[in-house]
């Protein structure tokens, strides 16, 4: 479904992605991990063109998404993206945040969009917060609203960049629980995370990046076994 082929990216003279080739199958959940600065965010952001690439191709269902002819906004409506810092719109209520894409991309009226948005909020367990402002809900709730907003246009792909890293420890669980449910419902997911428990139990495959290179790619069984890549072993022991 998503196909990286020889993808490289530079910031000026610094090469931050090195010749990355890999595939994500439809419905798969991929966890991206690796040391800080290894290029996880950058790679995740190339998939919805928040970052351009200088070499290689990224195809979704066979379409080269970095091609000039690609309509970038149409591409992005088909890909949910969740940020570490939530990035909710602070001047809009929770339900208005979730509804905005329906109103401004699907051109629905408020009245048409409202039931869909409320249903989506119910899905993430926050129907009762519909009229709250983002400043008045917790971090975990904010991230669940951000996930609801990213899913409102029913994207085929969901990308998350460290969705739980900005959360207080007691709120990590509620977000991971939601992601686990979404994963089992069959959405194609790429998640950058340091939550190795989540990676072990939920992901289909784990990608390990180091210095912009996809050094190792394995199913969780192998990834966490003693036969894993030596770099992974070093990385795993460094985060525990």
């Amino acid at each position, binding site marked *: 479904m998503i196909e990286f082929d020889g993808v490289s990216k530079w910031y000026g003279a610094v090469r931050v992605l090195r010749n990355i080739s890999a595939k994500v199958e439809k419905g798969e959940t991929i966890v991206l991990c690796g040391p800080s600065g290894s290029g996880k965010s950058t790679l995740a952001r190339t998939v919805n063109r*928040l970052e351009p690439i200088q070499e290689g191709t990224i195809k979704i269902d066979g379409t080269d998404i970095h091609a000039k002819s690609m309509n970038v*906004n*149409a591409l*992005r409506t088909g890909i949910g993206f969740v*940020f570490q810092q939530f*990035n909710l719109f602070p*001047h809009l209520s929770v339900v208005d945040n979730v509804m905005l894409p329906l109103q*401004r991309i699907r051109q629905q009226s408020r009245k048409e969009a409202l039931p869909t948005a409320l249903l989506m909020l119910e899905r993430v367990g926050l129907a009762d917060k519909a009229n709250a402002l983002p400043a008045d809900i917790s971090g975990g709730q904010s991230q669940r609203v951000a996930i609801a*907003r990213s899913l409102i246009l029913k994207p085929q792909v969901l990308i998350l960049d460290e969705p739980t890293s900005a959360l207080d420890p007691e709120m990590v669980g509620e977000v991971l629980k939601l992601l686990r449910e979404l994963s089992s419902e069959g959405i194609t997911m790429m998640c950058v995370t340091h939550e190795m428990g989540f990676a072990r139990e939920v992901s289909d495959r784990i990608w390990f990046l180091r210095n912009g290179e996809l050094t190792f790619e394995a199913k969780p069984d192998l990834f966490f076994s003693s036969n894993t890549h030596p770099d992974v072993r070093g990385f795993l022991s460094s985060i525990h």
Partner: protein
Amino acid sequence: MLEILREYGLMLLVGEYPHGKLGGLALTLIISIASLVITFPCAVMIALARTGQSRPFKAVASGFVHCVRAVPLLMLIFWAYFALPIVIGFPIDATYTLILAIVIYQAAYLGEIIAAGIEGLSKGQMEAAKALGLGYIPTTFRVILPQALFNVIPGIVNQLTTIIKESSLGSIIAVSELSYVMLQVNSNEVTKPLQIFGILAATYFILCFALSQATSWLERGIASKRTGRVVVEAVA
């Protein structure tokens, strides 16, 4: 002083009105508020061009801002008053001339304030809008501007005080605003410049001090529910 107020108080407030043209403090306020209202959309466009992606728009907007900031307002007023009628072939009322000059001048300054408001928003706001697939119009008008403008409300109110002070330059082209009226009073009452210009100064002071108090009150209110970070730059 009281004597002067008794005799000329009404004139100070409304000029010759109702026997002649409206003037005095009322005209000063009308000119100032009209200037701000007309400046506002121009300033928003300049700010959007300054902070946007399009190079030609950026170049035109920053060229305009730099030119305007390099000349005194008085010169713009001279141009609008003496040169513009020759260019367009018919005369314009001095009041409109003054408003036009203030609008051109203030568009540059208010534009910079609003641009600072836009740039002060966290990068994540723009990225989140992009990631949702929102186009330029909804991103600008639903996400960026509501937050940026809210954050620079104090700067906008502050600019109104600047405009009120600047409108006194209208006295040079015989716009019968507050300063002009008091100049006339002074030529009637040649022996009391201290009192007359004392009253003039006090009137401006009360007006502008009240507005600047309102500005800092707004600043505190907004700081407490600020939507994203911002640098409010008071350019005067």
